[in-house]
């Protein structure tokens, strides 16, 4: 038996390279970056100094402090745009390779089915982080360019300096990334079911919408703690002094449960699947 020379981390690197050499990936990152830019420009152009009290959370704060652009953009991106892009990447993981036919060559290399699933999930997880950071960082830059920037008053009434606030924004990006892990695992599972990537992408994104709709129905309150979208907008805890970790931990536990369940399902399906494409 030939020696296995590496842990196989080169496949992770290869996966990241392939993901970020696709025009599609950059188009999605570009679209995500447009969200804070659009918000900031519209607020700047239409600003008459008065707060209307309508629109997405934190929108009215932007004129006073450009640092709020990131927060507003994240709030806008979480329900729709982020799940959509994660749906594309996670839904494409296995189905995309099957569709190209490259799956058979990865498997006879041999990549190993479990290893390939893990690598694919790692790639999708990295994309979640990059997507979230894109919104936060672009928001910070455009906010600083178009609006005054200064110490921020938190939800708890305390004021933090710019560095402290950035630290919290990065924590927030982490929170959102973790929030998307469960959806990525669902996407990975759906992707093992089909050789048509668009179908897997649409199904994943649609599930995110369905979960949010169910989460909005008070009649289904018993179900809400089990929905992977339940804590998606619960990052307010990171905007208090002192930092409260409760929702982060609850969310992490819930997302971990989804990863465990759908990761197992994906492996159960993929490990015995006939690759005929």
């Amino acid at each position, binding site marked *: 038996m030939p020696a296995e020379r590496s842990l196989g981390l080169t496949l992770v690197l290869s996966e990241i390279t392939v993901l970020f050499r696709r025009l599609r990936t950059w188009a999605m990152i570009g679209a995500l970056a447009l969200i804070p830019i659009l918000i900031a420009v519209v607020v700047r152009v239409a600003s008459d100094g008065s707060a209307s009290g309508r629109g997405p959370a934190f929108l009215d704060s932007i004129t006073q402090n450009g640092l709020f652009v990131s927060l507003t953009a994240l709030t806008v991106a979480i329900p729709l745009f982020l799940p959509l892009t994660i749906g594309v990447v996670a839904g494409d993981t296995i189905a995309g390779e099957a569709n190209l*036919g*490259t799956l*058979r060559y990865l498997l006879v*290399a041999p*990549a190993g089915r479990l290893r390939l699933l893990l690598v694919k999930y790692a790639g999708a997880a990295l994309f979640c982080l990059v997507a979230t950071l894109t919104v936060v960082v672009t928001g910070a830059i455009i906010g600083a360019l178009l609006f005054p920037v200064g110490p921020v008053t938190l939800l708890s009434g305390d004021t933090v300096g710019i560095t402290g606030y950035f630290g919290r924004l990065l924590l927030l990006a982490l929170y959102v990334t973790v929030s998307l892990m469960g959806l990525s695992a669902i996407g990975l599972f759906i992707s093992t079911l089909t050789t048509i990537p668009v179908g897997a992408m649409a199904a994943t994104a649609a599930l995110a919408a369905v979960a949010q709709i169910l989460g909005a129905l008070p009649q289904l309150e018993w179900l809400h703690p089990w929905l992977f979208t339940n804590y998606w907008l619960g990052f307010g805890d990171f905007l208090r002094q002192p930092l409260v970790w409760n929702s982060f931990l609850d969310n992490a536990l819930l997302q971990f449960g989804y990863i465990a369940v759908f990761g197992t399902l994906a492996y159960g399906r993929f490990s015995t699947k006939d690759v005929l494409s």
Partner: protein
Amino acid sequence: MSGAGLAIETHGLTKVFGRQKAVNGVDLAVPRGTVFGFLGPNGSGKTTTIRVLLGLAAASSGEIRLLDGAMPKEARSVLPRVGALVEGPAIYPFLSGRANLQRFDAADRHTSPTTRNQRVDAALERVGLSHAAKKRAHAYSLGMKQRLGIANALLAPRDLLILDEPTNGLDPQGTREVRSLIRSLSDDGTTIFVSSHLLAEVEQMCTMVAVMSAGRLVAQGSLEELRAAGTVRVRVTTPDVADARRVLSGLGLHPEPHGRDDVVAAELAVPGLLPEAVNAALVRADVRVRGFEASGASLEDRFVALTGEGFDVAG
């Protein structure tokens, strides 16, 4: 049968899709060091067999040994020694040819990352793609993609190459190159299992063949054995055509009408009847034999006899 000396060995290999047996009780025995032709019409189960051999699809029943390892159980130690082209090449269209190969090579944990670029370039060189290595693969022609697929099979030294229709989409020069490539790989000691529906190609490259038809293995052996299993034809050139016909009929043969009026031909369809006995009978009957020829069936005749006439794809 002992597994020693066999690169591929299957027993009762069967693959069922729904109610259809795509592969039905196949017993393959591919000796090491041979160039083995895997023949069969479209839809006869060649590619499905190859998929099952490589562990891409699970066998419904039967056993597989590849390079003395059980498949798919020992895939992790077997597959790094196997290079494969399965059902045509597959590429990432947005990557260059070189990046495509680097990707597939990275999937194999046994290859060394430090020699990766060197091995990728050597494989590209070997199939004549060096000049197009940096080009995005979506701009490749069908033949170039096919070459890239073959290069992928050659990324590391292999003990066994499984090549499914390797000359598909290649121009005549490309076909010749692939043939000489296969010969040189075989000279290095690599066992090569080539599936094809092109008989001429198999005849030129292979020393042994197996023939699939409708999911079953209908013949297996050396090319000579396969040809010999077919009926021999005798062809007599003589001015005494009528007498010659009478003699052949008397021996139980069925002389066929022939375009020339000084030739009588017949299939030697009587068991135990040798061509020399036919000639002796003709001479005894005072037939003036000017020419006598006994020829084996062509591989094509054999192939058609085994897999059936007609243009229909086996359902």
